[in-house]
């Protein structure tokens, strides 16, 4: 049952991207896309199981929206902060690699978390090891695991937890 749902989700996603890519809904274009996506999802859907780890419940969609808005806000805010570092003549850096811990269990949740941390400038995920995340930080504020986790991880984690668990 889960396998069938997974297969369908992958197929629909692939067709959706095909249509976006072609920008047309003509019969022949659509037919080729449907068949090609069908073959790909038949072959690979079991390896793409992480897409369907998203919990399709109403609170999860709400969290996804809040996560997206929070992400955009952080992206702009921290880009401006990094720009001010780069532009200042003294180059005020205090780089270092700190260790943080995540409560997230699912693979997709952890991937999204690592990507979000990387995309907000100032922090860069260097290594993922189970629940431990090693993060390169341009301006280290705390080397303590709990404090660094609260500073870097917690903001994204609270939304991702509802979405993926």
């Amino acid at each position: 049952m889960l396998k069938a749902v997974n297969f369908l989700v992958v197929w629909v996603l692939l067709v959706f991207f095909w249509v976006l890519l072609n920008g047309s809904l003509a019969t022949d274009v659509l037919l080729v896309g449907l068949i090609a996506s069908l073959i790909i999802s038949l072959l690979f859907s079991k390896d793409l199981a992480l897409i369907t780890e998203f919990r399709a419940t109403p609170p999860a969609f709400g969290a996804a929206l809040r996560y997206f808005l929070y992400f955009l806000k952080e992206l702009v805010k921290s880009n401006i902060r990094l720009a001010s570092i780069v532009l200042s003549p003294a180059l005020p850096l205090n780089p270092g690699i700190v260790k943080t811990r995540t409560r997230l269990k699912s693979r997709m949740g952890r991937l999204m978390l690592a990507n979000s941390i990387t995309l907000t400038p100032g922090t860069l995920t260097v290594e993922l090891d189970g629940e431990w995340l090693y993060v390169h930080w341009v301006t280290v504020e705390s080397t303590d695991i709990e404090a660094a986790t609260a500073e870097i991880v917690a903001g994204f984690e609270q939304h991702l937890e509802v979405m993926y668990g």
Partner: protein
Amino acid sequence: MDGILALLGGILLVAGTTFLLLGGLGLVRMPDVFNRIQAGTKATTLGTLLSLAGIACLQPAWATKLLLIGLFILFTNPISSQVLARAAHRIGTEKSPLTSVDRLAEDQGNTP
């Protein structure tokens, strides 16, 4: 109305390319690989997204394709910089002397 959208597009384009320039500047000024990855890849992600949004405002017919490029960059850019940072750390690329702490090297049993 059309003029306002075009003006918005132009402003977004300039803002985006400014971030690209800042990313390039960071790439030149930062002292070691990890800081360069920080400055280089992320300012340019936001810069590219803003520029693509600007192009979409100037040429609304291209919006879907630009959205696709934007999504692709948003998903792949962090992955490639992460993979590169990990590789740089594993092969022991030299870190800047400013680096205050390296928990990863400590946990692997190397002195930082």
